[in-house]
């Protein structure tokens, strides 16, 4: 972890009545920094928490927002809840797989995009819903997704 996050992690140990509660917030720091939870960081987190790497693994493997493999700069999560499904969620996923040449859960070779299908994200009234890096994108269409991908690609080009 970068020094700033290490300092935040140590602060989090004091943020709750019991230290154990800091584990999930600290894992969020790691996920945010790296886009996943690298093995080496599990050891760092275990040391901060005063527990074993095995325990940290046991906890983080329970939660779907913690990734074990690197994810793309943009983590695109298509909701596959029933309300989204009957409003075309499967078409959105298929479009992304074809457009980006990845399979479910896969990351593009350039490391730009990861596409996941996720369970209900509580945006049912705005189906079909997508979240990108946990920002909500309600009532999405293939055209809107295409526009997002084009804009993101352009930003990366101009930034490089």
């Amino acid at each position, binding site marked *: 972890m970068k020094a700033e996050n290490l300092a935040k992690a140590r602060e989090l140990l004091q*943020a*709750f*009545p*019991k230290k*154990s*509660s*800091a*584990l*999930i*917030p600290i*894992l*969020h720091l790691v996920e945010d920094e790296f886009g996943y939870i690298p093995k080496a960081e599990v050891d760092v987190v275990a040391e901060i928490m005063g527990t074993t790497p095995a325990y940290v693994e*046991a*906890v*983080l493997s*329970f*939660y*779907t*927002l*913690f990734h074990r493999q690197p994810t793309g700069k943009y983590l695109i999560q298509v909701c*596959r*809840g*029933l*309300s989204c*499904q*009957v*409003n*075309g969620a*499967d*078409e959105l996923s298929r479009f992304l797989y074809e457009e980006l040449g990845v399979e479910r859960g896969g990351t593009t070779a350039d490391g730009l995009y990861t596409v996941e299908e996720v*369970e*209900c*994200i*509580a*945006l*049912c*009234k*705005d*189906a079909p819903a997508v*979240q990108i890096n*946990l*920002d*909500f994108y309600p009532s999405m269409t293939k055209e809107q997704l295409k526009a997002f991908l084009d804009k993101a690609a352009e930003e990366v080009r101009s930034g490089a």
Partner: protein
Amino acid sequence: MPEMRLLFRDIDVPGIDRIDVYEQHGGYASLRKAFLEMAPEAVHQEVLASNLRGRGGAGFPTGRKWGFLPKDGRTRYLVCNGDESEPGTCKDQEIIYTNPHLLIEGVVISTYAIGAEDAFIYLRGEFKTGYAILERALAEARAKGYVGDNVLGTGRRVQVTLYLGAGAYICGEETALLESLEGKRGNPRLKPPFPATAGLYDMPTVVNNVETLAAVVRIVEMGGAAYAKLGTERSAGTKLFSVSGNVLRPGNYEVELGKTTLRELLYDIAGGPPEGREFKGVIPGGSSVPFLTPDKFDTPLDYESLQAAGTMLGSGGVIVLDDRACIVKSTLRLMEFYRHESCGKCTPCREGTMWLNQVLQRIEDGQGRPGDLETLADLCDNIDGKTFCPLGDAAIGALASGLKLYHDEYEAHIAKGCCPMGEVVR
């Protein structure tokens, strides 16, 4: 009856997430009233008198739940359940994102009422933006003295801590939520002991849903007796319903319990089916409850009437399917969800959801065999009431009822070796 906006009274006010706007619309008046004019027990009495029932899904009377805390001097906690993960439910999300001060006000009043000093708001991991919205709102509330070590100068301390989960449906179950809040895997605990006696960090704890705590603000404002006059005797007050799926105007709608029928909600308020379609069925209380077919649409929306009609009010997540939807595919989709979300702790749930998923998949794929429907019913029976926590019963709610109400559709899949609806479901 049309909508009755009590919790959603100010939901459309621009900038209601800002404390000055919130105060201009009467915000924090209930908190002032509670802290400056009422003893904690008096607030509890109003909530008892209101007949408010938990809005997360179980519908347990809130005032009674508060009353279960032992009077033994131990530290107590209030935990707000903002894990909102029940498929079809997005009402708490709208409160958190649009009117965060309403939730904070309800949390602080309730913490005071149960004699606690520390409250925790547990949000599902996906509500990262909601966390930031609440964080900013909390800072505003602290600056105004509504939250802190000396609330409104009364010497009373109420601190509110935010917590972000990390993606797990089961953490909406209160004991699993407490495990997660303690930094562990979200496995449910054995009950008893209930959280009231041994909850967060083994201390007496009340866990209440977002909508429940928001309702407390209105109860203090109008008085418990006035709130109890809304709705029916046993289903008091108003309730938020999230209407989604195949419907013209999906949205969160607030209605008085028992005074509005499902038909009125679906047609008058939510605009009816999409053009040229007909409704086929509704799952009215989140994905965990049995289907209602259109012949039952005149059922009033309250706990008792929906139960008498064979389903449950649950979370108020109304998932609507029209005549394009394949029931086999829909129940398969739900079963994939429960299989994924089963924590794996107990056998009937872990194994049962996996087998139900596999048998449903082969029926949907046209590989169904004679006897498969009996197998599904038998598997449901082996889960029903036999799991460690409510997830097992939740998993079979829609399927067990679907097998009865839409039996022909399952039969047709097996007999024809394909989905008779073809690729109709998108």
